[in-house]
């Protein structure tokens, strides 16, 4: 590589540190963590993550100084066999650095938040080992995510892809043996299993894509694959379509799109910092990154692109409708995440890679903010509950306070605006950003996606705009239910504000959520020009209607106005339903009556989980049981061996040998054999299981089939 010899700035040799700093952090915690206090454990992990952010920033600076030229930093030889050579390289280009900055930046803030959060968790009980384990997993996650975004080949990307999946599994099941209140329950470990297994299905698609790629291109290195892409596309267009669609299966798994999204809502079983970091801001966007990274392939397969965009758009709308019917504060955000991921997938599917990446970054800011604020709300309620139990404990019988209380249920909240003012304002900022209100970050990024959609595929524009309407509606519903009205539970009435270590990282995130739009303001397109070094955007020859041609410094007033007005309208409607007359304790959702079964569907996630269970999981278990019990044992051993084969064999020999021998009496040997056969047939009637002989029979059957095949040929 000439480039690396001549122009490489020494700055880039730092690249491997983005993986090894978090690894160092987790090793130190494993070795010395036992003797350190919990504060030290948390800060050590946070510093490791923070240094990763510093290195990422340095790489970004180096890249900016080098005018965005892609740099591949060789690190080690990984696999060399025959013609295939897969080194472990670090790819530093504008796309990967953007991801690195987002992951390590948001990641560091969440590390710091987690120090406070984990300490307050009612289940924590001052067990420093659990505390250490949590931060070890978090650091491992950062390292794996860095491998994912910095990999220079699909195989390296896959290592990171599986690694973050593993971390996700470990962290969802972090409180594997208890529920949110510390009661024994396997719900969390089941959620972890569900996430892992669902993701394996997606990974299967990824593997197929990689295998096809290796078969067609003879390589899985980004450089080689993209270099040959056009040539192969001209010769075998079907191959490119197959690869991109297999990859889409992987994307639907990791980025929670239809039909594999079902694991993400359950993944909220993990601690809130995990939900924010892995299941909102970073890991789930890996699928979006994969599509953006594979832009040369997708650009060559417009049909596949359209399917990707459609999957994203439909997911965006579908998940948004479910979010309307949820009561758990984190579940609403989970479905919102699925919906927003749908926006991103639709964007990169349409070829609007910059818009997709832009939304990815701003979404990381405001969704992390919302999740962490939700965590703060939950903690506040737990504090209130604890306070209450403590207080009453003196007067009443202890056992009475073991009532079932879910601190995440919005029906237990209300009026928190006064009890938790800081969290309230932070939440408002996150909500406005998510709903896409001018001038918050979400407005700019969502507007860019909508504008691209309007230009390229009007039908997707309509679906996405509808989804945006629902987004504003369910966020409005949440705000009114949680923060306004009167407390519907005593715990809410006694909720307390969170300490600084929790609120300060939130303020930073809130700042980013307000200002994040500046990354890619219309007309300036900082991010667009930055990513141009890596992604060449296709120039479309479009005949646009006049209203789409208007540009106010890059901003299309029609699209912007329509989406903003719709969002404001949705918030207003939500105020009419939930804000004007606040819910009272025990009251049913006011939407339930007018919408009837539609709302029941939303409440129950359109019964997709139940359907999957009935169609796939139960069938899978049934088939396994059937194969083991009925086919392998009863059919193969008992019936086929003993009755069919042995029976026929004995019957035939009985006719051929016995009668013949008896009648003609050839010689003593055959007589003996006939005699033996007679006794055997008598015995075989009583025979239930002939084990060793059944096995021998299997061997013989195999021989007969093989020799028969060879003779027939």
């Amino acid at each position, binding site marked *: 590589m000439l480039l690396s010899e001549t122009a490489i700035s020494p700055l880039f040799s730092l690249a491997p540190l983005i993986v090894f700093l978090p690894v160092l952090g987790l090793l130190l915690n494993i070795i010395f963590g036992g003797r350190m206090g919990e504060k030290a454990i948390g800060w050590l992990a946070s510093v490791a993550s923070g240094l990763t952010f510093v290195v990422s920033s340095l790489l970004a600076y180096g890249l900016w100084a080098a005018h965005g030229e892609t740099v591949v930093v060789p690190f080690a030889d990984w*696999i060399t066999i025959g013609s295939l050579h897969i080194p472990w390289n670090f790819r530093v280009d504008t796309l990967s650095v953007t991801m690195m900055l987002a992951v390590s930046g948001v990641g560091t803030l969440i590390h710091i938040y987690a120090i406070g959060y984990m300490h307050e968790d009612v289940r924590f009980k001052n067990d420093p080992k659990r505390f250490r384990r949590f931060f070890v997993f978090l650091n491992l996650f950062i390292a794996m995510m860095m491998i994912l975004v910095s990999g220079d080949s699909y195989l390296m990307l896959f290592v990171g892809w599986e690694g973050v999946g593993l971390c996700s599994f470990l962290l969802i099941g972090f409180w594997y043996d208890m529920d949110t209140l510390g009661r024994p329950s*396997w719900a969390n*470990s089941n959620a972890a299993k569900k996430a892992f297994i669902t993701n394996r299905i997606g990974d299967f698609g990824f593997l197929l894509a990689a295998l096809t790629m290796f078969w067609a291109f003879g390589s899985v290195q980004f450089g080689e694959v993209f270099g040959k892409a056009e040539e192969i596309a001209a010769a075998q267009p079907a191959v490119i379509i197959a690869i991109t669609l297999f990859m889409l299966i992987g994307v639907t798994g990791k980025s929670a799109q239809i039909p594999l999204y079902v694991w993400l809502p359950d993944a909220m079983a993990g601690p809130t910092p995990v939900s924010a970091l892995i299941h909102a801001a970073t890991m789930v966007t890996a699928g979006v990154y994969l599509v953006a990274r594979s832009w040369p392939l997708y650009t060559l397969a417009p049909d596949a692109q359209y399917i990707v965009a459609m999957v994203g758009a439909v997911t965006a709308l579908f998940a948004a409708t479910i979010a309307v019917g949820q009561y758990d504060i984190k579940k609403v955000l989970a479905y919102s995440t699925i919906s927003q991921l749908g926006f991103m997938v639709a964007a990169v599917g349409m070829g609007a890679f910059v818009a997709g990446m832009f939304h990815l970054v701003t979404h990381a800011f405001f969704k992390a903010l919302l999740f962490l604020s939700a965590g703060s709300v939950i903690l506040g309620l737990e504090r209130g509950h604890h306070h209450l139990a403590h207080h009453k404990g003196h007067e009443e019988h202890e056992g009475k306070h073991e009532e079932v209380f879910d601190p995440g249920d919005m029906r237990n909240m209300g009026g928190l605006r006064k009890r938790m003012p800081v969290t309230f304002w932070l939440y408002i900022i996150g909500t406005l950003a998510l709903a896409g209100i001018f001038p918050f970050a979400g407005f700019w990024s969502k507007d860019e996606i909508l504008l691209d959609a309007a230009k390229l595929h009007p039908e997707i524009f309509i679906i996405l705009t509808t989804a945006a309407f629902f987004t504003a509606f369910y966020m409005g519903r949440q705000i009114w239910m949680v923060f306004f009205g009167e407390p519907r539970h005593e715990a809410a009435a006694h909720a307390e504000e969170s300490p600084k270590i929790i609120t300060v990282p939130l303020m930073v995130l809130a700042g980013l959520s307000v200002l994040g739009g500046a990354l890619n303001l219309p007309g300036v397109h900082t991010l667009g020009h930055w990513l141009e070094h890596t992604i060449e955007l296709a120039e479309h020859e479009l005949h646009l209607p006049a209203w789409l041609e208007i540009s106010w410094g890059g901003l299309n007033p029609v699209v912007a106005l329509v989406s903003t007005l719709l969002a404001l309208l949705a918030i207003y409607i939500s105020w009419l339903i939930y804000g004007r007359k606040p819910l009272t304790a025990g009251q049913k959702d006011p939407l339930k009556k007018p919408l009837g079964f539609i709302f029941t569907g939303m409440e129950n996630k359109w019964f997709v989980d139940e359907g999957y269970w009935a169609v796939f999981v139960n069938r899978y278990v049934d088939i396994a049981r059937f194969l083991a019990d009925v086919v392998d044992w009863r059919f193969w051993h008992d019936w086929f061996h003993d009755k069919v084969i042995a029976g026929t064999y004995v019957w035939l020999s009985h006719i051929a040998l016995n009668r013949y021998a008896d009648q003609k009496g050839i010689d003593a040997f055959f007589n003996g054999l006939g005699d033996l056969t007679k006794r055997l047939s008598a015995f075989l009637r009583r025979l239930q299981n002939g084990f*060793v002989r059944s*096995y*021998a029979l299997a061997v013989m059957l195999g021989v007969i089939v093989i020799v028969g095949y060879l*003779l027939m040929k």
Partner: protein
Amino acid sequence: MTPSDLLSILPLLVLVVWACALLLVDLWLKRKGVTAFLAALGLALTAGLALAQAGEETTAFGGMVALDGFASFLNVLFPLSGLLGIAVAYGYLKRMNIERGEYYSLLLFSTAGMMLMAHAADLVVVFLALEFLSLPLYVLAAFARPRLDSEEAGLKYFLLGAFASAFVIYGIALIYGATGTTSLSGIVAAIEAGSLGTSGLLLTIGAALFLVGFGFKVAAVPFHMWTPDVYHGAPTPVTAFMAVGAKAAGFAALLRVFVTAFPALDADLTPVVWVLAALTMFVGNVVAIAQTNIKRMLAYSSIAHAGYILMAFVAFGNPATRADAVASALFYLVTYALTSYGAWAAVIALEKQDPSAGSGQAASGLEINDFAGLGRRRPALAAAMTVFMLSLTGMPPTLGLVGKFYLFRTVIEAGQVWLAVIGVLTSLISAYYYLRVVVVMYMREGAPETTREPWLDFTWAVSALATVILSFLPMALFAWASAAGVMGF
């Protein structure tokens, strides 16, 4: 027989002599630990001598025995696997009250048979080696006498093994009839001369019967049915040794004979191998799901892995991919040996005598549910077991991923994309039952009683570390496996 003949099989000779001597010496040894030590010393010496032979390429005993990269690679692998077999057995035998010195001599003899298999360049020697390695194994399987299940395992293994070797020898007789010779070089020459005529069919059927017999040894479906019972009943260290050694020896014979002598039968045999491999992967992995006993589960897993290695054989007829087939199969054998020994060591750590069965006649602690709570009770052991399960599934960061990768690549290069797809699909299925062990260890309450023995702990710790570390630098190992080409004639 010349001195140079003897020199070329020196490690094997040393091991056989050592084993005979050990059998005698053991009579006067009170402490069986000394026997174990002496046996280990013999194996280490053998491995050292074999290592010193690396790079030589010659034939001996009139072409009946070959010394090449292939043989020296396996001749290092087999004694090392024997060493692990002693490491996991030492404490176990004591604990189960079956500490008898013959264990070590028998293990040495069986190892010698395996080494002879690696050398064999004549079908007579192949047959001799097959019996040489099998007979001690039959006895070892029944070694926990008077435990009923162990005796039963020995008897079943023996009856079926003898049955299968009858097919091997019949196949060899047919090959002899078709070509007039049993030496691999002679067979190649006879095929190339093209004078076979109708006896070509005889040769093909002979080769197929040979494949059947060794398909039995490596546990390929539908010749696999002995495996679960025997692995279940045999004393666990024997199972571990058998799962690794006997399988590797079976594949060694198949690799050498097929790659050297039978490439011309490619068109006839490849579909057979294809179907065997696909069936083996499928049945092994699917039936494993329904198992509740860890030994039976690992037995089905061992069947499934035989299927993965069999995949490499679809490439045996193609001169371009032949070397890759040998290299990737050898590499996978090493992968499987490491991982499998580790997993069995973990099983041994949990196994204990069942006090309810009276006079220590049965073992307990072998259900998968007995692993519950291991993550808390023995974190290091549980972590190691997790590594083994991940490696058997073929997930990073373990050697299993690299091994599967090489195998799939060989299969794809041989043009059998669908077989690779079946391989990927079945390993997807396998994630279900391997993951279940991990879930049970970490996410279920339980208080497993485990044994701490230095050599046992050493085995699983080293296996786990090697499984992870080698996955990051597999090149050295793969380079060695690639260099271990089969000598041509």
